[in-house]
């Protein structure tokens, strides 16, 4: 059935316009640093700024820590829920939806109230402790995505049969988890990991309120004081996000090939 395609094409064209123009505009703006001609000056300045390197590095380390803790938390849970405690599934799924329902700013407000220096668990008493708190905040933010990715991955590999096969061969639960389950959900974990990375790198609210030297607050600071560098930073941030998403696709495709 061939129909007039004007409508759909128009929608796509306008959509492309709306989404691409800001990117083009930002890129163009970032090249304007040197008077009268286009140059990458803004980028050089940004990339050689020690504060950029420090905060980007900090956020990267934090992202990696978040991923590790997140995976260690989510994978066993998803595994046991699927295998032995299916009745708890609705509860767990509800919990993984909470970070999407409760805004981040509310959560971090709660942390500051509960875990401040005068409470039972003073997580804001020292810089290190606050780092840990920030990491936990990030794990919370990434929880919905991480859980859904791993849960889907586990469902695709028929956990029950694999576990029974391993058990009948005499494996302990530790072996099963780390030698059998983890490798098979590697791709799901990777896609959750990249998404987490993208979320953590750009995060502002929690880092700023917990007063940690992360990339988000650094971005905001630059925006308040400089003219051209913020655009360069925005382009860099966009490239990083795109890279993360792209890698998810790449690994995802690889897995689909393997599964065939």
């Amino acid at each position: 059935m061939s129909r007039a395609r004007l409508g759909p094409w128009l929608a796509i064209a306008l959509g492309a316009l709306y989404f691409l123009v800001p990117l083009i505009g930002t890129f163009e703006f970032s090249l304007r640093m040197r008077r009268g001609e286009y140059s990458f000056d803004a980028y050089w300045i940004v990339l050689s700024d020690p504060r950029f390197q420090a905060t980007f590095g900090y956020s990267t380390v934090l992202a990696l820590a978040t991923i590790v803790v997140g995976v260690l938390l989510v994978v066993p849970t998803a595994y046991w829920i699927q295998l032995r405690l299916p009745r708890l599934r609705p509860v767990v799924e509800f919990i993984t939806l909470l970070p999407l329902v409760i805004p981040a700013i509310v959560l971090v407000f709660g942390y500051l109230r509960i875990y401040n220096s005068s409470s039972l668990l003073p997580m804001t008493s020292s810089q290190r402790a606050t780092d840990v708190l920030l990491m936990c905040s990030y794990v919370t933010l990434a929880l919905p995505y991480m859980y859904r990715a791993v849960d889907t991955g586990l469902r695709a590999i028929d956990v029950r049969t694999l576990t029974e096969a391993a058990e009948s061969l005499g494996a302990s639960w530790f072996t099963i988890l780390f030698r059998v389950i983890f490798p098979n959900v590697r791709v799901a974990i990777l896609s959750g990991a990249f998404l987490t990375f993208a979320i953590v790198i750009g995060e502002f609210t929690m880092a700023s309120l917990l007063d940690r030297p992360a990339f988000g607050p650094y971005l905001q600071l630059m925006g308040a004081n400089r003219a051209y560098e913020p655009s360069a930073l925005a382009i860099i941030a966009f490239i990083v996000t795109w890279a993360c998403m792209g890698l998810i696709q790449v690994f995802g495709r690889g897995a689909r090939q393997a599964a065939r």
Partner: protein
Amino acid sequence: MTTQSRVETHPTPAATLQLGRMSWSWLGVAPFFLFALMFLILPTGFLVVGGFQDADGNFTLDNIARLFRPNILSAYWISLEISAASALGGAVIGFFLAYAVVLGGLPRWLRPTLMTFCGVASNFAGIPLAFAFLATLGRTGLVTVLLVQYFGFNIYSTGFNLLSFWGLALTYLYFQIPLMVLILTPALDGLKREWREASAILGATAGQYWRYVALPVLWPSLLGTTLLLFANSFGAVATAYGLTGSSLNIVTILLYAQIRGDVLHDQNLGYALALGMILITGLSNGAYIWLGTRSQRWLR
């Protein structure tokens, strides 16, 4: 009793060790629940309870009352308006984009491209997004300048200002539209081709098909996702902060300032603000989930 054991009925070899195994399983999920307790349930509960307490810990409805002061009420109102505007805008535009790639008969490669882009764009919120829009539609932004240069038309002369209600709503669309597209595309996939064909062979036009079959089937998803977008926008801080600093009077900025101690540090008011936010986003998301289960039932 038999129904009770149906869930665990899998005949594992060590059935006698069932009890032992059960406690191992509970241990396995304990860290998760402990984490959820510490970082989700307790903080939220603490704030909710705190909203009903005064500085000495006694029960009071004072904080709730103070929410109704003019400037706070107006903050809520502006937040609701921006959220509604960006949610509706995102929903409508997102719907047409999703429709275009799924049912519009466009080249195959457009869909994965759009999906990937939406995945990126929905995460591109926050400070960088604010920068991008400033660089494009700010006073010296590319589009502003080009429009002056080639059309002699200065958008700022019409009273448009990026650092305002409409500017923020426009910026929010950048992650609202992709979110709508990402969620709606599978829903549109669910519209079986046979329904379209069956309706055609029974004599219906395209319009009648949409009116009697497609939209009724889709409306829970459409409405639900719009509510999701609404909640998403209501809770957003970073983009607004990046764009307007603390100048725009919306709830999240207000709360941010409260927490930072930028204004008269009144923590119980902060609790009340948070309580209001939880209520609104909770209801919105709750409706989204409920509508989701409703449409599942039909499309079994």
